[in-house]
């Protein structure tokens, strides 16, 4: 075998911009001439080096729009490699994860948190309710934007650690451990203490999805759903029953103090689950790395299907039940990243799927797949040729 360096995965200081300090409109204005020059010279990858505590999300979006420009020939945008050299917080962390290939130097710090707002005027009950609703919606939007950016990294992480599942089941003498339980436990061992708290938060969120959805499914029955409001009414009724049953041992629990806001939180959680459980992106997961989630026998059965579309459909059919719980956990993680302050190391960011590679760490990366080449003489062997042809 040989490794042939691929420029899509190799940072190039000769074709780079540097995002240092606060990201604002002024910085975007300053970087614009350099970006346009690099894009006009060639459509090769552009490296974005980052050392920033964050800034304005709209400025990051403007920067990304600029970096992803096409040209008069409708060329594909330049491939973007993002590299954090020291720290990437807040909006800078979003920029890091937005790279087509995202790299961290060791000992870097990456910080994710939810949307914040600073109000100049005194607050009233009405304004705080509105602000609360606005922040919740913005957090949901950012969570799903982050999910789109990092989904392929996360699914790749799953298929690469999946091989350790059987060993873990043996070690724990627990053959019934689900794929998700194995995945959660194996990744947790690789995380820092701060990241472990985040991982636990995501796990609890996923568990709550499961419990709530089970209650909603029971309550849905055979009644005809006429509109979105009908469906939401079923969900709300189920949540109310769920909360009453869950808190039946606590005589002080009531809806007026805390209970009602919990119902509201649950309602948004169920909605989050329903919107995302059959997401189109899950199909993408199934078709990119999904095949590796199958056993060798299953893969052989899939490969034996001659028609391309039928083969793809069969792959999705087999892979989907494996990846579905991982997908909902992943969505829960993206939402958990928007809660509180989540300070992460480069290694954490790798295992959480926020980045692709940590310089100097011996983790399996997508670069390994792309730069790998078979030896020419081995390809010429007749027995290998015949096995490849099959």
């Amino acid at each position, binding site marked *: *075998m*040989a*490794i042939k360096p691929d420029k899509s995965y190799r940072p190039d200081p000769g074709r780079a911009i540097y995002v240092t300090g606060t990201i604002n409109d002024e910085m975007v204005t300053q970087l614009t001439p350099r970006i346009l020059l690099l894009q006009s010279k060639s459509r090769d990858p552009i490296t974005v080096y980052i050392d920033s505590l964050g800034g304005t999300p709209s400025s990051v979006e403007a920067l990304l729009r600029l970096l992803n*420009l*096409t040209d008069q*020939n*409708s060329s*594909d*945008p330049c*491939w973007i490699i993002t590299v954090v050299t020291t720290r990437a917080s807040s909006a800078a962390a979003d920029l890091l994860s937005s790279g*087509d290939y995202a790299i961290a130097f060791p000992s870097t710090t990456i910080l994710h948190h939810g949307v914040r707002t600073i109000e100049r005027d005194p607050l009233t009950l009405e304004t705080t309710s509105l602000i609360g609703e606005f922040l919740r919606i913005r957090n949901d939007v950012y969570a799903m934007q982050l999910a789109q950016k990092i989904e*392929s990294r996360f699914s790749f992480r799953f*298929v*690469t650690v999946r*091989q350790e599942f059987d060993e873990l089941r043996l070690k724990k003498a627990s053959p019934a451990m689900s794929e998700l339980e194995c995945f959660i436990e194996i990744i947790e061992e690789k995380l820092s203490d701060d990241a472990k708290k985040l991982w636990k938060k995501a796990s609890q969120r996923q568990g709550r999805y499961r419990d709530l959805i089970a209650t909603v499914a029971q309550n849905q029955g055979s009644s005809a759903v006429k509109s979105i409001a009908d469906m939401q009414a079923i969900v709300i009724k189920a949540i109310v029953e769920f909360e009453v049953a869950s808190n039946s041992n606590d005589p002080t629990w009531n809806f007026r103090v805390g209970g009602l806001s919990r119902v509201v939180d649950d309602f948004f959680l169920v909605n989050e689950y329903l919107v995302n459980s059959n997401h189109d992106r899950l199909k*993408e997961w199934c*078709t*990119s*790395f999904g*095949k*590796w989630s*199958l*056993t*060798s026998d299953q*893969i052989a059965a899939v490969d034996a299907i001659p028609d391309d579309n039928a083969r793809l459909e069969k792959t999705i059919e087999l892979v989907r039940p494996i990846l579905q719980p991982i997908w909902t956990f992943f969505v829960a993680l993206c939402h958990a990243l928007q809660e509180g302050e989540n300070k992460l190391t480069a290694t954490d960011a790798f295992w959480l799927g926020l980045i692709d590679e940590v310089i100097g760490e*011996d983790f*399996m990366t*997508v670069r*390994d*797949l*792309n730069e*790998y080449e*078979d030896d020419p003489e081995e390809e010429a062997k007749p027995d290998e040729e015949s*096995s*490849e042809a099959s």
Partner: protein
Amino acid sequence: MGSATIERRPASQIKPTVKRTKELRDAAERVYRRYGTDLAAFRKDIQRELGKREG
């Protein structure tokens, strides 16, 4: 004039990820043909190759 061969698309419709997904699928397929689902063996070979370079 080569303009007839240029594919005109609005910027919003350009999705490089689709192209990358296909490339990745092909790369994964190539690795699978040699290593099956044993990614640990694949990674080991990569490390060996890198070791050779450093030596």
